[in-house]
């Protein structure tokens, strides 16, 4: 076992807290993206409470790992993980999407310290992460211990620009670039394989010279082990294809693409919190 029982318990508790906050903030905001945010809660928990080399009190610390959120619409999970790990007060989460809030509808680096890029339109995160890793390679070479994580959706793999970045990364091979694809099989209009098939996804990345790891995105052992493996690959970029359930933790939302881009009503929010508390 990679993780002790107590660490596992700690992570499960944190993930549940993060999910509760996601429901609360989206219910309060009355708009936003619920399914993807809930689905990525375990991975964000693993990142902010174990994997990332970061300092929430010094968000601009030069030695930090960089986390680029490409599909900015799932920012409730980013904000929630950041608040729970100490970047800003938990109460601020309820300002999501409000006028004057640092928690913009899609995360923006100038509004909130600790956010690395300003995202929104899909297919632009990976290229930025490749650029960051290239700059790091110019400055520190192959011994750099800073890692560059790009969190992406599966839907945005339909953007041609994503594959331009995949191709460049396969050419320049930054050892410290790790993409994590949320393979939740849904997008706004339906199921990815109906809208525009992505499979065989792993083979596609392999063909572009990437090291590919497929995991259960809700299994902490899987997540930590995959990142460990990706870090040890020195001659290629790595992609972790994380199979997740959109809406994970809330039965009414799980697996339903209709929840890609909507927020719970007050009633739905209350039920969702009850469902999440059941697992306490």
């Amino acid at each position, binding site marked *: 076992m990679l993780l002790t029982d107590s660490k596992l318990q700690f992570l499960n508790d944190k993930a549940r807290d993060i999910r509760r906050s996601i429901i609360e903030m989206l219910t309060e905001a009355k708009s936003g993206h619920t399914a993807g945010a809930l689905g990525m809660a375990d991975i964000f928990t693993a990142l902010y409470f174990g994997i990332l080399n970061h300092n929430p009190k010094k968000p601009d610390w030069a030695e930090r790992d960089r986390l*680029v959120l490409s599909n900015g619409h799932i920012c409730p999970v980013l904000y929630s993980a950041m608040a729970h790990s100490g970047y800003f007060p938990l109460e601020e989460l309820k300002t999501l999407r409000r006028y004057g809030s640092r928690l913009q509808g899609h995360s*923006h*680096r*100038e509004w909130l310290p600790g956010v*690395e*890029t*300003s*995202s*929104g*339109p899909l*297919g*632009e995160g*990976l*290229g*930025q*992460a*490749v*650029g*960051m*890793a*290239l*700059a*790091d390679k*110019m*400055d520190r070479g192959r011994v750099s211990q800073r890692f560059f994580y790009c969190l992406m959706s599966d839907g945005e793999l339909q953007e*041609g*620009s994503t594959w*331009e*970045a995949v*191709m*460049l990364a396969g*050419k*320049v091979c930054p050892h410290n670039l790790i993409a994590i694809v949320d393979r939740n099989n849904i997008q706004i209009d339906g199921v990815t394989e109906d809208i525009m098939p992505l499979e065989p996804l792993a083979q596609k990345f392999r063909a572009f010279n990437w090291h590919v790891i497929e995991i259960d995105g809700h299994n902490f052992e899987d997540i930590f082990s995959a990142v460990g493996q990706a870090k040890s690959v020195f001659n290629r970029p790595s992609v972790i294809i994380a199979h997740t359930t959109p809406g994970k933790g809330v039965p009414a939302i799980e697996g339903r693409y209709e929840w890609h881009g909507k927020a719970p009503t007050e009633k739905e929010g209350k039920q969702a919190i009850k469902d999440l508390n059941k697992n306490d």
Partner: protein
Amino acid sequence: MINLNPKLYDNNIELKPIRDGFGEGLLLAGDYDKDVVALCADLKESTRVEEFAKKFPERFVEVGVAEQNLAVVASGLASMGKIPFAVSYAIFSPGRNWEQIRTAICYNNTNVKIVGSHAGLNVGADGGSHQMLEDIALARVIPRMIVVVPCDALEAKKATLALVDIICPAYLRLAREKSPVVTSVTTPFEIGRAEIFRESKRAQAVIIACGLMVHRAMMASKKLAKEGIEVTVINNHTIKPLDGKTILAEVEKTGAVVVAEEHQKAGGLGSAVAEFLAQNYPVPMEFIGVDDKFGESGGSAELLEHFGLGVDDIIEAVKKVIDRK
């Protein structure tokens, strides 16, 4: 009086492509600041990035024919402290990748210099598909973006170096064809400051020009002077931020304006000047530019004449605008 090329009005004036000046400036910029990096999308020879790539191979990134990626990778480099010059043809960048420039560079506020070469009709033989006439409009409408259109190779060199010291997204527009070197080494250049290249106490109109139209404006002013019509000529190399102070001072003296640019009349330098004057000092204006048309194949000079960007077209516009006062 400003120090320009002494052979400015001669027939044998030195001709040099504006893009060449950029290449020389970039090479100097590489020495000047070790954080300067260059990216190109399979056009490094024709955009004059090649010498930089040879001298600083570790600071050169070839992204292949992928302009969207050109912009976002540059943004990532900038967010780590680099000063990227992302170089391609204007038709592709900012043409193809406008939204990436808007979001990943300008909205994200990263210090990327977009360099669009081969802009304008002067690309000539390649035809309308490659004659970018909308790029000034595309660039200047984005918040935070600085837009610079040098009038000759020497100015392009100075502009490239000057952009290194400005921490801000910027667009630098270049031309392919050889064009007259209007300025001299000592001609002042400062981003955001328009320069008066010709002035007269008896000026009846102001010609505000950018890019290779500056030389044409100067030639027109000389011909007009022979007919007894004096004009002021402003080299307005920085479209944004517009130097309203200089423009206003000259327009107040004359009360008539002609703008000249190798771009659509809509959205470019002329529109920027019109927006400013409409709010501050409305006067009659005439526009020299391409009138809502696509380009076509041909020689650079003949295309400029065909689309109404000739010296005589400027002269006519000046006379017309003076009549309208």
